[in-house]
Structure formats: C-alpha cells, structure tokens
C-alpha cells in the first residue's frame, strides 16, 4: 500500500501547486498551500509506518503546528491588505516590479 499512499500524496501536492498558480484569490491560494502541506504530512506518516519508527509522525506533527502559525500570520496579512486595497487578489499587489 505504501506506493499508493505516496502516489496519492504526490497527486494532492501537484493539485495544490497548480491551484497556487491558477487561483487569484489570496485565501484560496492559501488553502492550496495548506493542501500541499497536508500532502507532505501524508507522505511522512506513510514513511513512518514503512520504516517502522515514530519520527515521521513527530515531523508531521511539527508541520501541523508550524502550518497553524503560518495560517494565523498569513490570514492577518491578507486582512490587512484587504483593508487597505479592498481586494484579496494576489495580482493586485504587483507594485514591486521593474
């Protein structure tokens, strides 16, 4: 089953990456990032069982905690941007360029 789990993880990761590239709504982009993180967690858990120790699960746990912190800060930033620009589109914040 390990192979199937890993392939599922890769698919979810790729879908999340595509979502990041395609979607313009910053919140949805954020959701896609979360999906990518979850896909990684699945791979960690799968490998933990495959090699037979708990370290993979510990790492997955830390990823979750860090992701939670990241979501908090990221969403705060989105709210701040939305407050000033009345827009949550990632394309609107494009002044930092040539």
């Amino acid at each position, binding site marked *: 089953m390990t192979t199937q789990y890993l392939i599922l993880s890769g698919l979810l990761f790729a879908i999340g990456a595509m979502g*990041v*590239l395609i979607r*313009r709504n910053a919140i949805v982009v954020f959701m896609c990032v979360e999906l990518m993180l979850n896909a990684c967690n699945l791979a960690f858990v799968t490998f933990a069982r495959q090699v037979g120790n708990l370290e993979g699960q510990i790492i997955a746990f830390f990823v979750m905690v860090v992701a939670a912190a990241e979501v908090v800060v990221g969403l705060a930033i989105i709210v701040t941007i939305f407050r000033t620009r009345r827009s949550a589109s*990632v*394309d609107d914040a*494009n*002044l*930092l*360029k*040539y």
Partner: protein
Amino acid sequence: MESPVEIVQHTAGGVIGLSWLMIVLPLLGAAILLVLGRKTNRWGHLLGVAMSLASFVVAVLGFFALIGLPDDQRRQAVHLYEFIPGMVDMGLLIDPLSISFALLITGVGSLIHIYSIGYMAHDPDRRRFFAYLNLFVAAMLLLVLSDNYVGLFIGWEGVGLASYLLIGFWQFKPSAAVAAKKAFIVNRVGDFGLLVGMFIIWTSFGTLAFGDLGAKVNGVQDGTTLAIGLLLLLGACGKSAQLPLQSWLLDAMEGPTPVSALIHAATMVTAGVYLVVRSGAFFFPEGSTAALAVAIVGAATLLAGAIIGCAKDDIKKGLAGSTMSQIGYMMLGAGLGPAGYAFAIGHLITHGFFKADMFLGAGSVMHGMNDEVNMRKYGGLRKYMPITFVTFIVGYLAIIGFPLLSGYFTKDGIIETAVHHQPVLGWLAVAGAGITGFYMSRMIFMTFFGEKRWDADAHPHESPAVMTVPLIILSIGSIFLGGYLILSNTLMKFLAPAVGRPTDLPVFHFASVPGLATLALVAVGAGFAWFRYGRAEVPVVAPRGSFVTTFARRDLYGDALNESLFMRPGQWLTRIAVFFDNRGIDGVVNGLAAGIGGTSGRLRRLQTGFARTYALSILIGAALLTGALLLVGNI
C-alpha cells in the same frame, strides 16, 4: 695650454664668505615688494634699486678680495648648506669667471634699475616691475655663482620664470602674453636638454659639483661626454636664443624696453655662453666634437641674427636680431677652447654694455615718441634727443667694431681666433660683421638722420636725467672697456685660473688680414646703408621687397618651420587621439554600457510583480530539478 687651477675651500670669513648676500639681497627685495604689495607702491622702486646696488657693492668687494689673492687661490668655494644629502652640497663658487658675470649682472642691472625708475614712471605697476627685476637679478646671480649644476639649474629656471613674468608684464596685451608663453615653452626645450645632461653627468660621474667633475672626467672624451656636451649645448641654445631655439627672442621684445635691455641683451641670454664656458674644461675641450658643434651653432646664429636684423623696421626687433647675432659670436668664441674663452667673455661684457646702451637708447627714443617702435616713422631725431643720439652712436660704433672702441677689440679677437682655429667659420664671422655694419647703420640712418616721418601727435623730447645718466655710463663702458680688457690680455690672465689659457698669449694685431677684411666689409655695409637709407628717401610704408627681404622679415621662417614641424604634427596627433578617444574608447565604454543597459532593460521585464508568475517559475524549477535528480539517480 694651462689648465684651470684647483678649487680651494674657502675657510676664512671676509667678503667672499659673505658673497651669498649678493643673491639674498635682491631676492629679499623681490619678496618684500611682492608680499607687501601695494603698501610699497610709493617707495618700491627705490628699494629695488637699493637692493640691486647693494648686491653690486658686494660683488665689487668680492672682486677686490679675489684679486688680492694669489693666482692659485683664486677659485674659492663657499659652502652654504647640504642641499640634497649625499648628492648636492649647496655652495657658491667665487672665481674670476663667476665674479665677472656677477659684476656685469649687478652693474648693468643696477643701471637698468635706475633707468627703469624714469621709464616706468607712469606705469601703475612699477612696483611689481621692480620686484620682478630683483627676482631676475637674484636668479641670474644664483645661476652664475653656484658651484654645482643643481644650483645652476635652479637659477636657470628662476631666470626663465622672471623672464616669463617680465615679457608678459603687460599681460593685458595678447601679443605680450603669447610672447611670454612662447619664451617659456621654447626655453623648456632647452631646459630639457640641460636636465637630461645633468642626469647623465650624475649617473656617469656621480657628482654635479664643478669642483669634483674635473678629476672625475679627467680629460677623457668619449660618447658619454659628447652626449652630455650636446645636451648642454641644447640647453645653452634655449637660453641664449641660438639656432634652432632662437624664435622666442624676437617676440620677447613685447616686454618693456628695460627688460629687453637687461634680459635679452646684457644678461639672461649670456647664460648659455656661461654654461658652455663653465663646462668647457669637462665637456667642450678644445678640438672636441662638442666644441665644434658649439662653434657651428654660433656661426650659423650670428649670420641668421644679422640677416633678420637687416629686415626689421621695429627698432627693438632690429636690436634683438643683433643680440642673436652677437651671442652667436660669443658661442663661436666659446667653441674655440681656452683661446676663445677670454674673447667670448670679453665680448659678452662689452656687449652687455653697448647693447644695454642701445636698448636703453631705443627705449629713450620710444619714450619721446609715444612708444612708437617703427623706425620708418622716426627720422631726424638727432636734434631733438642729443644725449640719446650721442650715446646711441657710441653703442653703434662699438657694435660694428669701429677701431679702438670696445666691440672692435673683443669681436676682432673672436674673429681672428676663429680664423686661426676654424677658418671657414671665421670667414663666416667676417661676413657677419659686414652685415652687422649694414643693419646697424640702417638703424642709425632711419632713426636719427633724414627727414621727419613722425606721426602728427609725436613731440620728441630728451628723456630725464634718471634715464640719460645710465646711458652715459654705459656708453663710457662701451668706449673703453674693450681696449682695457683685451689689449694686454688683462681679461685672459684674470680668467685663466677659472677656464685655463693657451700657452702663448695672443698679441693683438691692428693690421691682421681678417681684421682689415672685417673693417673693409663693415665700411662697405655702412656705405650701402647710407646709400639706401641715408641719402635716399625712406618710405613710411615698408615696400614689399624681394624674396630675401620677406625671408628675413619672417625671421628666416623660423616660426613657420616650428609650426609645421612641431605644432601641426602635435595638433594632428591630438586630433587623432581625440578622435580615437571619442570613437574608439568612448565607443567601447558607451557601447558596453548601452549593451548592459539594453539587456537589463529587457531582462527586467521578467520582474512582473505578479507573485503567481514567480511561483510558476519556482515550480518549473523544482520540476526540472526533480527530473534531473531522477535522471542522475538513474531510477
């Protein structure tokens, strides 16, 4: 032939020990006048004269102290201080040669100082003028009194500086400013020769002191000494306006007339002769190639100067041509070894007197004629300026070599020695004397005789006593000095400790073949001048003249030659360099900059500011990296 005696270190005090005062006094005068500026306007000229006179007094006392010593003690070195440790000790060399020059410089210089009081009376910058005159005297004294080439060179440059300042004294006149610049630049060429010569002396012999050089060179003549000799000759040519560096002297007449008298007749231009005579024992011994080169340069210049003098209507430029010519005689004499030295120095001294006399006379004429210099607008001035006329006539007779006057003895000495040693050059000098007779007579006839050709507003009058008294003193020198110096070989004996002398002292023949030929030619020249300018009417506007006249009027095309040989190629070179700089170097630099700028201008479009574009490139990069890892891992 006798060699110069050894230089002895001066130990006791006395006047010789104080000879540095000669240099310091006028230098102090210049410093005071320049530093205090306008505050000294009222009495500045008097201070300048006083300093010059004081220097003259020191020189006279030094002279008497020197002749009080036995012959083998007559070269006194006065050590002053260590200038460049281990290389140059600054010191003065008081010997007959240098004291002769010092007497000439301070004596004639003082007379010219006094004369300038009257001549510059109406110039608002008279004080500055006297400061420069003092500076000049100090520099020239340093040049002749220094006991080594470094000190000589400092004086040499100081003289060049003072000359620049004085020629361009009326710097509001563009012609004066240009003339000053020209003099300075042409002198630089000569200075370059002197400098390189000094470098070679130092590397070859390890000393620059006159006292040590005799033993180091020890009479050996080879390629090195020849090279040094020619380089020193180049320096001498620059300072003495000898061919091919003569072009500055005629333009230098833009300065006030006392400057022409002091610098361009009596003293500065003689520095080249001094250099050759001073270095004679080391680098220009009798019969050497370098000495022959000196003599040839002298002969060529004396002819060139005489020819130029024939065509000039400007009285000062005519005298300047004559100066070139007379310095040419001195160089010719200096190129003949110890036999010629005495005559060269003698002619130098007498020329200092009669040329200063004539220049100051010309200044006196100009003073009375509203600064008119064109001789075609003079005529018949003898009745209006009797003293000037008489003194000028004395100078004239001296320079053409009228029997028993100063110039007769000294110039005839040079000519006879030259005929004896270098017959070709000697007879050229005879011919030069004939031309001298012509152009000097022409000057006299055009200025003092004939009809009045003045402008309407000219009111010729005699100059004040402060100007005529120096003229009288100078003309007295012009009459008697030559006979005194030459007849019983007084000067030759006096100079012998410094420059050596021939074993057989020459006897002055009043009826030698070259002497009589010279007199005859001078008479012919003067007669021809009378025929053209005394008897006939002198046209106010210069006639076009023949090709030869134009040739002479244009200074033998010296300026044109310099221009086409040096200036034009230089201009082309700079233009090519500018073109290359603009198109080549600037092109590469600008092209590179434009290339980088253009490339970055296009590359920066990649920075769109859209986070999604960046994310896309990250993902593509990650995918490519994963693919590469898979390939490398050979999975």
